[in-house]
């Protein structure tokens, strides 16, 4: 997986450009004349500080409004600078403090740095000196924030990588299992088929208990079908990792999917309507996989809806995203099942009727395509499956599918219809 570390650069650049106006500064000194003089001169350089005349007031200001830098006189009546510094570092660890000490008390400054001050200046102070110290302190804060953001970003990427790796190892396992099972399955299939042919021979016309053999062979054949469905779906789940992207017209795609399931819907007297949006952006995605998801959602809806029911496919543009909803008027999903329906092998259908992989595979596909799939349901009223897709999903395997985009797609889907 390619991690775009260069995303972090703008953060570092921002701290270099730190504008004087952006520095939130608090000036604390009990000598009002001195304090105001400094404040005026700082204001001329574009930095307007807040002011406080005691340690207590300083803490009150900080409690209301967070500050980047506090310039703090050490020698004050009541709570002195060192004590104030202790409170500041305790309650506002991100705020940097510059101490102002008298010439005779530089020892206080050293103590202050040990207690967490950024630096100290000795009175009388030079304005340029003070300014450059303030800037340095501010840069330190910006740098710390950038580092924190970087750490958060890395943590997020790491989590994504773990998820991706899990999915990949599951995929590898699935391919292995599916392949290993398909081969013996094929042997069983041919053996049963051969036996069936043998039983049709004239010489076996009068064979005792022939019907029992035929019944057993039939059971073998339906079980092969059942096992085949599972392995093919597992392979389908893995296949999505090799998505082929192309421009997709969702309305066309939805129409095709509806056509593919229409026979089953007609048999059950269910109507399927398509409500396309007025204007829907084309999206770049994997049309084959999306079709698979849609057919899956439609098939589920058909199975959940009784005769006379209605299924509606709604398409909507949401800014740059597109929304595809499949709603039915079926039996609905009980609350306790809502969380489980996307889990693998969860099915409420009778054994052999559903593999319990359809929604699991669909969710995997949609997430791989950069989208989300959610469900809302009311018992007795029906369910809505809501799929949201980005207009464009960047991918390292981004390739155009024009060459074989529509290659036998319908035939393949028919073979792989998820139930």
């Amino acid at each position, binding site marked *: 997986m390619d991690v775009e570390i260069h995303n972090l650069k703008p953060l570092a650049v921002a701290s270099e450009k730190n504008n004087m106006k952006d520095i939130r500064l608090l000036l604390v000194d009990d000598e009002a004349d001195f304090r105001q003089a400094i404040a005026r001169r700082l204001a001329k350089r574009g930095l307007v500080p807040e002011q406080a005349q005691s340690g207590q007031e300083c803490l009150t200001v900080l409690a209301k409004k967070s500050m980047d830098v506090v310039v703090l006189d050490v020698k004050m009546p009541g709570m002195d600078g060192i004590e104030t510094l202790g409170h500041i570092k305790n309650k506002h660890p991100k705020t940097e403090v510059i101490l102002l000490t008298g010439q005779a008390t530089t020892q206080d400054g050293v103590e202050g740095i040990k207690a967490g001050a950024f630096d100290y200046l000795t009175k009388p102070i030079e304005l340029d000196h003070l300014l450059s110290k303030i800037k340095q302190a501010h840069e330190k804060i910006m740098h710390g924030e950038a580092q924190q953001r970087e750490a958060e970003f890395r943590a997020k990427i790491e989590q994504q990588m773990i998820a991706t790796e899990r999915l990949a190892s599951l995929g590898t396992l699935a*391919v292995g299992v*599916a*392949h290993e099972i*398909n*081969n013996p*399955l*094929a*042997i*069983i*299939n*041919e*053996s049963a*088929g*051969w036996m069936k*042919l*043998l039983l049709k021979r004239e010489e076996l016309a009068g064979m005792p208990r022939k019907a029992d053999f035929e019944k057993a062979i039939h059971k073998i054949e339906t079980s*092969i079908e059942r096992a*085949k469905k599972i*392995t*093919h779906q597992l*392979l*389908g789940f893995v*296949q999505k990792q*090799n998505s082929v992207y192309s421009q997709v017209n969702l309305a066309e795609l939805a129409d095709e999917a509806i056509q593919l399931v229409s026979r089953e819907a007609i048999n059950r007297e269910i109507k399927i309507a398509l409500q396309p949006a007025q204007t829907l952006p084309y999206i770049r995605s994997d049309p084959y996989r999306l079709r698979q998801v849609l057919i899956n959602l439609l098939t589920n809806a058909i199975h959940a809806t009784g005769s006379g029911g209605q299924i509606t496919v709604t398409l909507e543009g949401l800014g740059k995203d597109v929304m595809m909803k499949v709603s039915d008027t079926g039996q609905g999903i009980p609350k306790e099942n809502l969380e489980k329906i996307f889990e693998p092998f969860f099915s409420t259908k009778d054994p052999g009727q559903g593999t319990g992989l359809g929604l699991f595979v669909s969710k995997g596909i949609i997430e791989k395509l950069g989208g989300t799939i959610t469900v809302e349901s009311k018992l007795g009223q029906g369910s809505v499956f809501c799929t949201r897709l980005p207009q464009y999903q960047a991918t390292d395997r981004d390739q155009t599918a024009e060459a*074989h985009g529509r*290659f036998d797609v319908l035939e*393949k889907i028919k*073979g792989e219809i998820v139930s």
Partner: protein
Amino acid sequence: MIKIPTRILIVDDEKDFVEMLSLRLAEVGEKTTPAYSGKECLKVLAQQEIDVVILDIKMPGMDGIETLKEIKKNFPLVEVIMLTGHGTTQTAVEGMKLGAFDYLLKPAEFSDLSAKLEAARKRKDEHQERIRKAEVKLLLRRSGDI
């Protein structure tokens, strides 16, 4: 009407599969020959007349795609139906671009296999018929020249 058997070469490293499919196809009147590797497949093709090859994609040593390339290079008229237990239709698409007639996912539906075998055989027969006619024309023109 007597069925003319299709001469089928079944290539798969799964011996049991080759055996059972051969028996089944023989039961419906086809003539089958087994091969258990890509190399063996090419050897058989060099020795006897084959209409259709049923070729497993995933085999140790020379795999299905490599074998397919060799078949198309050396025996262009022989039709190939690919069998894939791997489910990756991507490989099947690649195979068809290389000249395979069609593909089937393992385990295959016998009716699908039969239909594809017949279509492949038909395509080969028609192709050979066109070659024969072209040869006759060529022969007539030559004799006309004399």
